[in-house]
């Protein structure tokens, strides 16, 4: 079976501005695939390139094994759900859903039948005759999904469709979207800047930054095994400390930092003398009161600045000697006493919780 979507060396430039640089990617049929990145990272441009509104400046887009060059959005087997949904206000809910079938010349009775089924599928059977403006945000969302599904696309593209909803509804729609995807079994390509959305819904995630796909992998991989400093700091909370590699051994490396010597994993194969960053998740930091005895475990001193108790966890903001802020998350389950602001603490972490990555030339 051919891949649902293949990108091969896709570049999109607007004048001097490179919106997407060298995107290479294969998305499998039936996959829930997300593009995750901050606004302006080129993810929407990439989505519009797949849907056919933008022709790549270089490279090719293949959908179902077929090259899409010169094929307009109206003739691609994709359907796009817009950020603002773009429902047609002058049509009823049923007319909206049936629009794609109408332009395809599907006979009326067949169309009505199909629209009815879709209305049931998105739990809107009672609302077919209503105007779009009479629906709630979540209902509109479902109309947009039904309208896109009506044309039986092989790939459904979603451009941050949940961003306009309130938090509760957004979380509910996540599970609903995932359920719909499982039911219809087609490829979903989802664009978001919300890592929570990407992590909970996706089979795989492509993390994008400044037009470049930095890493592709499942949610666990991008969270636990980031390969670039951007991914490490964008997906989940992370602390970073700069330094220079002084020793490399057994997949681990030692980093000389202004805060002392720190040890971490070295998955990207950094060499001695290279500039590097070490990333440690807040939940991996261990806090100990007092100053350490000489020659204790890798660690450094910090002063607690702010302690925010949140029930199951407590976020502690600390200031180290260089003035940099570090966050640590303490689990209530650990049973440790909470620090007080102003207290001097000893911070440490296990070498397998530290992750060394090359420092980008221009941060």
């Amino acid at each position: 079976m051919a891949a649902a979507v293949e990108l091969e060396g896709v570049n999109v430039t607007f004048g001097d501005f490179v919106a997407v640089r060298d995107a290479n990617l294969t998305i499998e049929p039936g996959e829930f695939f997300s593009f995750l990145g901050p606004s302006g990272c080129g993810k929407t441009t990439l989505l519009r390139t797949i849907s056919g509104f933008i022709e790549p400046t270089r490279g090719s887009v293949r959908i179902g094994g077929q090259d899409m060059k010169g094929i307009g959005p109206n003739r691609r087997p994709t359907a796009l759900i817009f950020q603002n949904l773009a429902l047609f206000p002058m049509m009823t809910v049923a007319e909206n859903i049936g629009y794609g079938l109408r332009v395809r010349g599907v006979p009326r009775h067949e169309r009505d039948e199909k629209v009815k089924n879709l209305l049931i599928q998105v739990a809107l059977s009672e609302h077919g005759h209503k105007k779009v403006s009479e629906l709630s945000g979540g209902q509109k969302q479902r109309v947009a999904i039904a309208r896109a599904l009506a044309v039986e696309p092989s790939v459904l593209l979603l451009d941050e469709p949940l961003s306009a909803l309130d938090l509760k509804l957004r979380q509910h729609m996540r599970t609903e979207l995932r359920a719909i995807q499982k039911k219809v079994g087609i490829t979903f390509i989802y664009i978001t800047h919300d890592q929570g959305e990407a992590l909970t819904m996706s089979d795989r995630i492509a993390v994008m930054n400044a037009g470049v796909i930095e890493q592709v992998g499942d949610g666990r991989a991008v969270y636990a095994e980031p390969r670039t400093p951007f991914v490490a700091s964008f997906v989940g909370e992370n602390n970073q400390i700069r330094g220079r590699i002084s020793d490399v051994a057994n997949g681990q490396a030692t980093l000389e930092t202004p805060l002392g010597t720190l040890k971490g994993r070295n998955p990207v194969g950094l060499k001695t003398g290279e500039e590097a960053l070490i990333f440690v998740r807040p939940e991996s930091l261990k806090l100990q009161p007092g100053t350490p005895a000489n020659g204790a475990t890798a660690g450094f001193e910090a002063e607690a600045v702010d302690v925010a108790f949140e029930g199951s966890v407590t976020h502690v903001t600390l200031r180290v000697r260089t003035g940099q802020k570090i966050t640590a998350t303490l689990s209530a389950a650990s049973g440790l006493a909470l620090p007080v602001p102003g207290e001097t603490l000893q911070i440490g972490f296990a070498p397998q919780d530290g992750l060394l990555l090359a420092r980008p030339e221009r941060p």
Partner: protein
Amino acid sequence: MSGPGGLTLVLGLPLAVALIFFALSAYERRTGLISGPGFFQRNGLAVGLYLVIAVGFWAFFVIVLPQLAMVEMSFRPKLPPSQMGGPKDIYTLENYRYFLFGSTTSTASWNWLHIKAFFLTIAVSIAITLLNFAICYPIAFHMAQSASVGRLRILLLLLILPYWVNEILRAFAFRVLLSSGGVINQALMGAGLTAEPIDFLAADVGLYMGLSYAYLLMMVFPLYNAIESLDKNQIEAARDLGAPWWHIHAFIVMPHAKPGIASGCTLVFMLCAGALAAPLVLGGPRTLWFTPIVYDRFYQAFNWPQGAAYAFILLMTCIAFVLLVLKAFRLSLGEITR
């Protein structure tokens, strides 16, 4: 209106209007129809009073009164000044009857000359309106949805600049262009496309061109406004769902722009049917337009009552026609003013 009576009317009427407004607002306030700061509280008594009087004065003296005078006049016979107000000065439908059954020779047979001119005017106005819509819709759509800011500015300038030229001058310019020895005929003959000059003016090409051009802006701007407010995503959504371009225009853009289309078409149709300069200057020798007839009633026949009746027939027919079309397209009069 002269003497102290007239002066009282001029000063008293706007004041009366202001008082009516005042009473109305007080009444609505008491019955709870409106709430929040009132008109006079928001603007202050002096400014508020000025606004009400100014608007009332303008609406009454500039719009209502002249029209009423014309309507009144249209029901009176044509009399020499000495007999005005005399026993012969009665209300009559004679002027309206003349439009249907009248001529210089008899008043029994149908007045085909005027009736034909009347329907020609209406029919051609409809045609010009449709033509204008066909020309302006693509321009307006381009300006509203796809033109860059720079292009939009140039297009607007190109559209507006020619209208700095006087309407009659523009009509004569068309005459010069289209006449037998005009630029277009010379070019056609020079290119060997025709041997003889084509008489564009006799074929009314000039009239249609002049009329279309004269009211182009009246069509472009309402259309532009209406299309501009359409969310680009809707066009893209329709395209993404597989719609061909004509379907998008017919079922997405035009329904959205319906109020703009209606107000543009209404303006062009009304102005076209009432146009005077273009038909006078550019009309072919065999074409009799209705507005010059009205003009002739006033200034050639010196029959003001009849002219008023004719003008009124035209106005009423146009209004009825426009309302009918609006109803057919399920639009209310309020919507086209949006």
